């Protein structure tokens, strides 16, 4: 079982995001605020499901403790990924938070109907985006209790 720096258990966060700029910002911010976070990045919905199901290319993927999911993705969009996660008895307990540009009420309502744990809009301003990532870390990865992974990660 891998141990993170400072002797703490790693926190596996799966980021499903196709924008390289947003990926970079999140990598840098998480690196700054929480050294326990292991950020795993996939760029489309199909890769996300392969990661979660340990399909080809992802045989050793750890089970994420937390998922950040964009809605508008190539190949399989975030809504479809959310449906698949929440219909899976094993995967549905992983807190899954939508992080997307869409502010459309229809998207917000639909996501909560599909049982997303939370819905966040990406701010346009860089410093606000950073601030949001910090608050995601503070609320979800420090304060909230997350379900334990069932197997060693």
């Amino acid at each position, binding site marked *: 079982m891998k141990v993170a720096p400072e002797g703490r258990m790693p926190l596996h966060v799966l980021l499903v995001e196709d924008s390289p700029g947003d990926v970079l910002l999140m990598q840098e911010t998480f690196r700054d605020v929480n050294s326990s976070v292991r950020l795993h990045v996939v760029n489309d919905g199909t890769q996300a499901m392969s990661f979660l199901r340990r399909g080809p290319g992802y045989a050793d993927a750890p089970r994420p403790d937390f998922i950040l999911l964009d809605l508008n993705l190539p190949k399989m969009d975030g809504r479809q990924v959310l449906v698949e996660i929440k219909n899976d008895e094993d995967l*549905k307990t992983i*807190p899954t938070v939508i992080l997307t540009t869409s502010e459309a009420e229809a998207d917000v*309502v639909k996501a*909560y109907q599909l049982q997303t744990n*939370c819905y966040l*809009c990406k701010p346009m301003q860089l410093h606000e985006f950073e601030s949001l990532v910090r*608050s995601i870390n503070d*609320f979800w990865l420090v304060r909230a209790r997350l*379900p*334990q992974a069932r197997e060693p990660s």
Partner: protein
Amino acid sequence: MQDMEKANPIQVLLVEDSPGDVRLTQEAFREANPSVHLHLASDGVEALAFLRHEAPYRDAPRPDLTLLDLNLPRMDGREVLAYIKADESLKTMPTVILTTSEAEVDIARSYQLQANCYLCKPVQLQEFEALVKSINDFWLTRAQLPQRQDS
């Protein structure tokens, strides 16, 4: 600014049987966000009556957020959670467990029942206040919440 706050209150339902914790939560929300209108239910039966608009809650607003203790008299929080998430019109309402239990089995079960999030109540006053602040910051300021359908 004050008129805006009164005109657009944020409705939070707190399902909590400990009067001390109720008071702490009320004061912490008052500090953190004057727009929050905190409604109280002291057990699972009252909580469901509130959510179903049954007497004496016929005019109850739909909560924007529900904070739910697990260990409650009459009907516990697990049953309330299961009810909320099985109800087509209630299941979109963010429901956050706020409880003393740190038991892994309670955490796992709550997420299985699709609780939006699980929080343990801190024992220290200052930490409790800080937690309510962070609930306010994250859920009531940053998160997008589904709009009330019956407002």
